[in-house]
């Protein structure tokens, strides 16, 4: 399902400056689009605009439009949008209902609210929990899980609703390397299964490795947009508060020294093979 953002300018209530300025962006169905940028650049606000929390929940002043699969978010209710767009937040504590005693019941919560039949609910919950590798912990209390497990639970709750678009707003930022790796394995699996994904992320090595499209936000506007190679190929990217993966900085340095030339590798392994070739030639 496509996402089209057209000339979106948005200001939070009581703020003088807009959080988003004249954003135009289209994300094709099945794309894994990563949002990068310094804190305060507008990543979360854009995530919320696509899920409809902006302006429905936050109010404020919005110009321009956001459509998901042709549906205008302003004219649609949050409930209706929730069937199209699922969102996972930075802090899993913000997401867990606190109203359920088990991991299983937590994932079933949203489905029960939609009045989905019992058999169908059971099937969807099991499917979602298996996808995020939490099925074995289904009888645990959500509050007894580690941060990484809670974040996977939040994703399972979204998956159970089966929205075609999934937004993850810095879902790994509070997690350790192992937790981050698990979330990205799930993101890559969802991408392969055809979901449309919008992922705000600071960990650039994952962005470079997995994104089909990268949008660099700076002070509420789009500073760059394109393939990972296009965006990370910009030499002045640091001026926008973003650092390329360290191995890319290194490859640029080697290119300047005339020790290597070629297409910028997007993973550490590819960088290693490129340099092995140099050493062998």
């Amino acid at each position, binding site marked *: 399902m496509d996402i089209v953002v057209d000339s979106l300018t948005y200001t939070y209530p009581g703020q003088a400056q807009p959080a988003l300025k004249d954003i135009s962006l289209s994300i094709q169905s099945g794309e894994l689009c990563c949002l990068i940028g310094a804190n305060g650049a507008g990543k979360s606000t854009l995530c919320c605009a696509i899920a409809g929390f902006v302006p429905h929940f936050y109010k404020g002043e919005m110009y321009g439009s956001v459509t998901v699969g042709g549906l205008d978010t302003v004219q649609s209710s949050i409930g209706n949008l929730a069937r199209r767009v699922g969102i996972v937040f930075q802090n899993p504590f913000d997401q867990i209902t606190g109203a359920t005693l088990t991991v299983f019941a937590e994932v079933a919560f949203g489905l029960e609210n939609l009045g989905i039949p019992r058999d169908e609910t059971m099937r969807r919950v099991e499917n979602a929990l298996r996808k995020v590798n939490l099925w074995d912990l289904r009888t645990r209390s959500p509050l007894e899980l580690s941060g990484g497990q809670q974040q996977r639970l939040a994703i399972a709750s979204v998956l159970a609703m089966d929205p075609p678009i999934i937004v993850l707003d*810095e879902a790994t930022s*509070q997690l350790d390397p192992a937790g981050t790796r698990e979330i990205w394995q799930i993101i890559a699996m969802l991408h392969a299964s055809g979901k449309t994904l919008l992922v705000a992320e600071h960990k650039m090595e994952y962005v470079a490795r997995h994104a089909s499209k990268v949008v660099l936000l700076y002070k509420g506007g789009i500073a760059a947009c394109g393939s990972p190679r296009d965006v990370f190929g910009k030499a002045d990217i640091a001026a926008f508060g973003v650092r390329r993966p360290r191995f890319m900085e290194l490859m640029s340095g080697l290119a300047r020294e005339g020790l290597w030339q070629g297409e910028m590798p997007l993973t550490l392994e590819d960088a290693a093979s490129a340099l092995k070739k140099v050493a062998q030639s």
Partner: protein
Amino acid sequence: MSTQSPCVDADRTDTGKCIVLDDVHFEYPGGVVALRGVSLKIGRGETVAIVGENGAGKTTLVKHLNGLLKPSSGSVTVDGIDTRSKTVASMARLVGFVFQNPDDQLFQNQVAREVAFGPRNLGYPTERVEELVKWAVEQVEISDLLPRHPYDLGLAQRKLVAIASIVAMDTPYIVLDEPTTGQDHPGTEKLGRLVARLGGAGKTVIAITHDMEFAAAHFARIIVMADGKVILDGTPREVFSRPAVLERAAVEPPQITRLGQLLELGECVLDEGEFLQAFSRRLAALKPSHEHEAGQPARPEEL
């Protein structure tokens, strides 16, 4: 950044101004054993990163440094004071502690009041409190946030406020639990400069981190924990040149170091400059034999 090696720092700690853990074991009331015999000496002015996967015992260890937890057996002394003989409140003059989640410690309605709370609570006169607040927000580079309400700020900025509020207490030891979590690149750089400034001022900075680039760039000493024990303790170069041991702790060396290891450069490189030198040497070492095979004469300088 402190450039002194841990050995030199260890000598310096003979004055008694240091933290000493002697065979510390700790078991939580539920029966989970979190520390299994940790012995360490951390001196004044040292910058120490503690790394290891979740559950390795990192947070349990640092909670021993200000007496929040007391060892089940063994002992912890700070500047010669046994933590079991003091309350957490009195240890707060010696060891400042910033929690992982800033919302566990922020409760005032203005950043300025939040940062002033600690030094005021320690009984400093108003003038000194004002001085310390100004100094602390300069160290953390958040002077512009002073008039703001902490909950109008994003999580990453609230974290910097929490750090400033502890720095303002002017303790000789400062413990940071995962300071870079949620920070963007400029935020992480700010924290790196903070570590250098505090270390330079003779304060000891002990930080738990999962960010190996941050640990390698800004700390003179890295302690690696696994399963309640210290499995490596040394300079970044000493620690990151042991990939097999690090794997046991589920710790990956920084990207540049890993790339060097993938290419078998034969030495532990920590940054772009070191990589460049080692890689150039590798190419130079390969070149003569290559040219010789191609039947070209050796260059004059090689004769």
